[in-house]
């Protein structure tokens, strides 16, 4: 009985060692992946901030003003004027369209029938 117990516990020890070894390497792989993902995130963030800066640079008021002047023929953009305010009543709403009558049903006299007269 006793030798069997010894062998079993030894096998259990080997199994546990193997498990710990695998876990260790899996953890290290996961950490490495996290690190590389974080590096990727940092890179993307950096790219994003540069793109934001470029967007701001391309949309700077000086440049937009120049572009509006150069492309005046096509766009016809002018600075906003007080006279351009309108009132809500000036907006023409599309006319509400009534649904068409598909199946006309004559309902005259039905009420009387229902009351059993």
């Amino acid at each position, binding site marked *: 009985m006793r030798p069997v117990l010894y062998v079993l516990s030894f096998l259990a020890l080997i199994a546990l060692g193997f498990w710990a070894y695998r876990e260790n390497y899996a953890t290290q792989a*996961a*950490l490495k992946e*996290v*690190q590389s993902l*974080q590096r990727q*995130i*940092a890179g993307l*963030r*950096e790219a994003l*901030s*540069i793109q*934001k*800066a*470029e*967007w*701001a*640079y391309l*949309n*700077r*008021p*000086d440049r937009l*003003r120049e572009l509006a002047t150069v492309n005046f023929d096509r766009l016809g953009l002018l*600075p*906003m*004027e*007080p*006279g*351009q*305010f309108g009132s809500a009543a000036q907006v023409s709403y599309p006319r509400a369209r009534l649904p068409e009558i598909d199946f006309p049903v004559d309902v005259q006299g039905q009420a009387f029938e229902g009351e059993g007269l």
Partner: protein
Amino acid sequence: MRTPLRPLARILQARADGLNPDQIERENLRLRHEAMREKSRARAEFRLLILCVSFVCAFGAIGARMGLMAATTPVEPRASAPGAEILAQRADITDRNGRILATNMTTHALYAHPKVMVDPKGTALKLAEIFPDLDPAALERRFTDGRSFVWIKKVLSPEQMQLVHEIGDPGLLFGPREMRLYPNGTLAAHVLGGTSFGAEGVHSAEVIGTAGIEKALDARLRDPAQAGKPLILSLDLSIQATVEEVLHAGMTMLNAKGAAAILMDARTGEIISLVSLPNFDPNDRPNPLVDKNAEPGDSPLFNRAVQGVYELGSTFKIFAAAQGMELGLVGPETLVDANAPMIWGRHRIKEFEGKNYGPLLSVTDVIAKSSNVGTAHIALMIGPLRQQAFLKALGFFEPTPLELIEAPGARPLIPKKWPEIVTITTSYGHGMSASPMHLAAAYAAIANGGVMIKPTLLKREGATTGVRVMSEATAMESVKMLRRVVTEGTASLAEVPGYEVAGKTGTADKPKKTGGYYDDKVINTFASVFPASNPQYVLIVTLDEPLDNTLSQARRTAGWTAVPVASEIIRRVAPLMGLRPKLEPPAVDAVTAASN
């Protein structure tokens, strides 16, 4: 095996020998006790040993771990929380709508290790080709004089970096840098100020603010906990650009040396636009002037709106009128003595171009016609002490609390003594100097129904509280008077249909450094409030040494210079702020009280 205490054989033997058998029993008992004691001692010793070993192991493990932790270099825990900010950088600055005013860009710095350089001379020549501002001879000297480290360039563009790579010398190295970028160029340059590198290392460099809000709020911008949150200013990018455009055009047309404009929300104290011309590019901040004789205002770095402390001229008259009404000394229609010239001691108080609006003028007309004498009489009714207290309440005795590093340095110039002649001159804006920002804050108090709100460059959330400096009725009457200045008085060019501009002009001669005043150099100011029926915004326009010579006669009064510029600004900017023009009700004929 247990030995009996009284073995029969020995007892019998002892009895036979005539000895006491009890002795045998005692002897055996002693032996047994001795054996028992031996056994328990061995067990205790064994236990102590185990305990000792385990304690040694435990403390040894803790000690070893501590030693290990102390000896190894610290490392960042790798599995940190997701979403943690990775780039510790200076926070962005945005306008009130989130459009970027200042952000960061990664770039590289170039440095050299001359000791590992293969060809110092050739490298120096090639570097000078890439960077024309570097002197190849000086560079070569620095490469060969035995030092082991040389900074070459603080910031490189990617193209330049590629060219340096192509030199291929192992002694040339790059360090990552974070650079401050102002994508809008000169826009709001005086507010933003600028940055430079502080402590520099190979792997990183500190970016520190050198002027403007970058320096004033440096700690907030560098705070790693708030790095992801941009600093939101009260400025509006489009409005700022428009004001700059119009002001620049006005400044050029009127041949002015400089100009400043402040647009402020009277209700919240937020500065929507702050312009000072000439301006500069904060990406490439010019050096301050070194010439001792140069006036500070000659440098483009000088913020005229905040640092420029000028005598603001007749724009001050409304304060005398408002205080007179607040104290119940005068009403809008009270007639005051306006007989010019007024003699006070050795001084003669004259009107513009020696006119005489007198002998009597209503307070409203004193403001509308900008009568110095009329204002002087109101100020004398108020008296020096009350006048000082009122101006102090309006913030004219302290630097403005604006979030700019330049603001605390711009102290108003207050006369040390306050005799009655100072009371008289101060009432029409001479003898004491303040910045346009002070004027904006004081006019905002009038526009805001008499409640003084501290001006700010940061976007304000929620309700604002202020200090009441005059009653609502007085403030309303004052705005009405200012409106009369535009409809019937000196600022008739300020009329913008639909926006009911109310304001006051001011023309002050520039003081000479040597004392006295210039005859042909003036500062023109127009302080305005709009729309008059429900004042929301305050606009101050200041022009430095303008000259209108569109007509035959050269004109230097604010009514011909600052006023048209201000009206154009309002015409362009008010729609951008979503302010709807409204048709003014036709003027009701004044009802005259008639007594029987």
